């Protein structure tokens, strides 16, 4: 007797044939509601949707709650949870060693803006091709709530007291440092985070995304600019963003002049729907000016703040290295010949 089995819903797979589960990591041990966790989810879905080969990805982080997160996404990718504030150098070394790796770094505002500012700036300068996410909550979460270098001036926290130091704006720092893809977003704005992440994967060079990511335990008072409430209320998007991969046709439909399409290095397109102002993110001076104004007026602007769509020479270009990843060179290419030794020794005889 034949029975009709209810068809088991096939899990969705991406271009590479992977299920979304292949992009997940271990269970998070962060506080429930932490902004960082929602960013981890965004990374999982974007990598799945774009069909990024997880085995080719390499995750990097420093130390902090944010820096723990690479354990919570992309479990099929190697990860390097390094030391506090010095992840940029580690990522630089790894990506120089293997130029085929797709690098994704997660850091905190303390990790990048306090202890790590020097390495961050020098990494930007070297234009190491990778995505660099700052999960910015204005505090040191893991050490229980001290102010970081991005904390608001005049802010008061129960534990840390009053902050009298002006905040460092990491987007401005990145732009000044020559970064060619600089964005800011909000963990409470998943759509924008995803669009930015997608665009970042298409960028040629380093892409910095500063994401305000509330620390629900130590810095989520309404008066903090790094809280959910503040973010939701004050987020000012520079534009609405849609990312269209190179392989897809652009079908988004907007009135003439209303959108600005930005074609990335790999042929994909970021479609920016202009909002209140006609912001041009490809103009470096305009980007700096807008950030400076936002700083002065205490606005919380988000979006793709600056992009040079064609990118810029990366560290790989600067060292002129061969196409084959250095880590994959056969021993025969690593050790010169017996004759080569004889010949160089000749000069020393």
């Amino acid at each position, binding site marked *: 007797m034949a029975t009709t089995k209810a068809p088991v819903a096939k899990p969705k797979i991406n271009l590479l044939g992977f299920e979304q589960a292949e992009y997940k990591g271990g269970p998070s041990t962060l506080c429930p509601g932490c902004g960082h966790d929602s960013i981890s989810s965004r990374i999982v879905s974007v990598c799945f949707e774009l069909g990024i080969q*997880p085995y080719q990805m390499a995750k990097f982080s420093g130390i902090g709650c944010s820096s723990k997160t690479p354990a919570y996404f992309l479990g099929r990718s190697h990860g390097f949870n390094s030391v506090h504030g*010095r992840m940029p150098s580690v990522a630089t070394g790894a990506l120089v060693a293997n130029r085929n790796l797709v690098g994704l770094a997660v850091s905190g505002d303390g990790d990048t803006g306090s202890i790590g500012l020097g390495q961050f700036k020098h990494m930007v300068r070297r234009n190491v091709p990778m995505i660099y996410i700052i999960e910015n909550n204005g505090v040191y979460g893991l050490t229980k709530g001290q102010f970081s270098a991005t904390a608001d001036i005049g802010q008061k926290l129960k534990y840390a007291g009053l902050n009298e130091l002006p905040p460092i704006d990491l987007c401005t720092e990145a732009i000044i440092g020559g970064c060619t893809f600089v964005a800011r977003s909000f963990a409470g704005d998943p759509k924008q985070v995803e669009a930015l992440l997608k665009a970042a994967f298409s960028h040629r060079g380093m892409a910095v995304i500063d994401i305000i990511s509330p620390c629900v335990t130590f810095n989520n008072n309404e008066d903090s600019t790094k809280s959910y409430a503040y973010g939701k209320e004050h987020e000012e998007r520079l534009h609405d963003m849609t990312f269209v991969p190179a392989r897809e046709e652009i079908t988004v439909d907007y009135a003439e002049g209303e959108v600005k399409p930005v074609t990335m290095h790999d042929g994909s397109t970021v479609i920016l729907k202009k909002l209140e102002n006609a912001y041009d993110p490809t103009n470096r001076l305009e980007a700096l000016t807008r950030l400076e104004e936002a700083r002065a007026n205490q606005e919380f602007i988000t979006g793709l703040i600056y992009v040079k769509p064609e990118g810029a020479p990366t560290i790989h270009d600067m060292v002129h290295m061969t196409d084959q990843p250095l880590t994959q060179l056969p021993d025969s290419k690593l050790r*010169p010949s017996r004759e080569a030794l004889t010949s160089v020794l000749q000069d020393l*005889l």
Partner: protein
Amino acid sequence: MAVVDYQTEPRPAEIASGDLNINDFAIIVATPNGSGSQTANNTLLRAFFNMGIPVTGKNLFPSNIKGLPTWYSIRLSKDGYQARRHKKDILVAMNPATAQDDLKDLEPGGVCLYPNDSRMELARTDITYYPMPVKELVKNSGVGVDLRDYIANMVYVGVLAHLLGIEIAQIESALSKHFKGKAKAIQVNMGVVNAAVEWSQANLQTPCQFRCEPMAQTAGKLMLDGNTAAALGAVFGGVTVAAWYPITPSTSVIDGLNDYLPRLRMDPETGQPNYAVIQAEDELAAIGMVLGAGWAGARAMTSTSGPGLSLMAEFAGFSYFAEVPAVIWDVMRMGPSTGMPTRTSQGDILSAYFLSHGDTQQVCLLPGSVIECFEFGYLAFDFAERLQTLIIVLSDLDLGMNQWMSDTFEYPEQPLDRGKVLHAEDLKQIESWGRYRDVDGDGIAYRTLPGTNHPNAAYFTRGSGHNADAKYTERSDEWMENLDRLAKKFQTARTILPKPLEMNHENATAGLISYGSNDPAVIEALDRLREQKVNVAYQRIRALPFAAEVGDFLAKYERVYVVENNYNGQMAQLLRMEYPAYAARVVALANCDGLPLTARWITEAVVEQEG
């Protein structure tokens, strides 16, 4: 050329009748820094070398770009000794600022050359003085004013050539090598040399008691510094990523890479570099890049000196605990803090061995010759990848920056040891894999590289507590298991690192342990000691942690002198620490004045206790 005024040589009678000294004397050239004496000194060194005479050259330079005193010493030794000589025989006093002090450092019966317009006080009467008409010879050379300062130094080359009997052809050949065959430069310099020779022939008739005569001791030998050898070793060891920050005296390791890599390591297919050399923004970044690259599977290295080593401490502990291969060449210089950056010392032994907090211990290599700089240059990568840990190679300024005569380098016979790496194909074969599992019982686990095309390849590298499967842990049992394995790995290191080398004397009544650049001074001292009927066996340590042979050696002798170039007798301290049963036998002989040790100092120190 006009014969110029010639000042009488005040030559004491007893020296005039002294024996001839052939091929066994030391010359010191004192100049102000930046005055371009390098060409002249190199030329002399090379000329002696070309004549087949064993020779070494040491540069004693200030931490300054122009003006402060600098000295270059050249030692000829028919017996092949290469260590620094305590006193010198011939002084070329080109620097009036130090001339008085320099004179004091001459052996009785020595010789002093000086420019005849220098108003130096000829204070010693047991010395033969040769004033040289430097200004005049240079003026007459026809060389443009801008170059005069540089070629002025060729005058003493010419005068010495005459006095000592250096073959002019060898000077010319040395210059040709120096200027890579550039005819104009060779010609200008030879012009001055020849003029000085002519002048000397005309004016300096009394034969000099120091002479050089051709030998056949340098055929097939090399002449180079340890840093260049290290670089060459790294190139043949397959270095692919070098990240560094400039610091004396390590900079020339990277200079060596930048010289040899483009020549030897361009990709045959693409013509592009098969390597990347990156100048980092500081030493924290340099070691971070090395760890990133080593983790990714590259053979990665940095080079630095004390202050940089200190800055690398945190990452060094990460390498130890997360087991990431890395190589640091620490070319040691003098002192706590900035110290004397252009003086040699072996003061980083303890800080390297214990580099980083929290029960970290590091594997160190101790090259004792330029050959070993070459060998450890490639072996360091083998050990780093085999042991999956940081290897600190402890060289020093003397070994690294001075010119040594060396046997030629052998092509490495062993293939590269890439250590325990599981590739995608391997992973297909095995059921399960844990990054920190001790499968083979040697404490060394298997690793995978990022980019490995297999679903089980990935693991998460962290400096925090992890279990055998690289999962986060704070459990005592898992933590202990991991520490025990790391300790076992450290024991494994003892068995695979370069063994100490020994020179046993029959009837030895005591032992002597040393390491690194002290070797030539010790070898020479042993001969001197034997002459005084003091027989001492010698062991040269080449790696930390100690091999079993070190304990065996200590077991054999009631007194073991540990000779080293630092203040605290650091190796002696380590030996006492590791061999409590023999701790009381360890006699520290440590000296720390910024200069390489001499055979005389070692001999006297041993004789004082043993003689």
